[in-house]
């Protein structure tokens, strides 16, 4: 296998080191269309300078050559920003902002698996994108809350109208948010946790 020659001293800055006691991590995914504020939200709440990870996606290509029996494979590198929030000495939370092209992030198998849940950033300028995103999350059984980013000049709808337009069940929280504001992003994550907490309480525990 070929590797790029890596910097032997690559690694976290001193201030970005986790304590040795950190025993486990949880993850939350921020989803939404291109330009909706995912990178901004990750950067706003992260305690480390946001980082980028990448994965190579292989898709079966169009124009499969049946005669030769050779299937064309298309490789795409998908990049994703992420940040980190230390919860306590044992637990750390990672926040991933999905790549812009929706057709790629749901191919990234490990991304939603084991995630606590997702924050959907809703772009009122392009509701159809968010509609699609919500559909994928429901299909995958990923719990989510919906944060409405207020962009200047974007159409302003009451939350109740957006809920109806998005076909959201009454129990799914939908609220306004500013991805540039730390408190607002913290509240969005807190709303997701409360929602998960309520779900865990409402459903009887399987014994």
């Amino acid at each position: 296998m070929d590797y790029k020659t890596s910097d032997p001293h690559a690694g976290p800055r001193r201030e970005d080191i986790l304590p040795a006691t950190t025993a486990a991590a949880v993850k939350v995914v921020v989803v939404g269309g291109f330009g909706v504020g995912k990178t901004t939200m990750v950067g706003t709440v992260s305690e480390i300078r946001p980082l980028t990870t990448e994965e190579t996606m292989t898709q079966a290509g169009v124009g499969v050559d049946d005669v030769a029996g050779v299937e064309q494979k298309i490789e795409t590198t998908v990049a994703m920003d992420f940040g980190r929030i230390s919860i306590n000495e044992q637990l750390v939370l990672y926040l991933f902002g999905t790549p812009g092209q929706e057709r790629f992030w749901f191919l990234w198998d490990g991304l939603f698996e084991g995630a606590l849940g997702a924050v959907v950033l809703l772009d009122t300028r392009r509701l159809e994108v968010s509609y699609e995103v919500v559909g994928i999350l429901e299909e995958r059984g990923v719990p989510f809350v919906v944060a409405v980013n207020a962009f200047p000049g974007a159409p302003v709808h009451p939350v109740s109208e957006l809920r109806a337009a998005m076909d959201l069940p009454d129990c799914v929280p939908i609220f306004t948010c500013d991805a540039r504001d730390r408190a607002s992003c913290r509240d969005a994550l807190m709303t997701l946790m409360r929602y998960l907490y309520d779900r865990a309480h409402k459903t009887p525990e399987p014994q």
Partner: protein
Amino acid sequence: MSKADKAWDPGNPDRLYIVTKGCEDSNKAMVRLDLVTLIVARTETDPGLQPEHGTIVRMCDYPLSVAEISAYLTLPVSTVTVLLTDLLTRGLVEARPPARVAALPDVCLLEAVMHGLQNL
């Protein structure tokens, strides 16, 4: 649930180690690494290691997620997973699996996260 899955119970990183150690030359696929599996070096780095292996062992002095290792090495997650599988098999690093999130996550886990977020 298979034996391999059970090894991913939270709080049991040693069980994963035993599993990988027990199948050194057979089934490497048994190591399942999540983006947020934390990796910690078990040894000092060794000049005899391949450069990428050496770099990982050095940077995992303290816990680091698979995603962070990928970011610092600027290598795709799947490539980093291959490198980490080698290191795990050789017992040079340990893996701390993510807190297990079932369909209904543990209430105590959620309480801890909410408490942590309040301090943000």
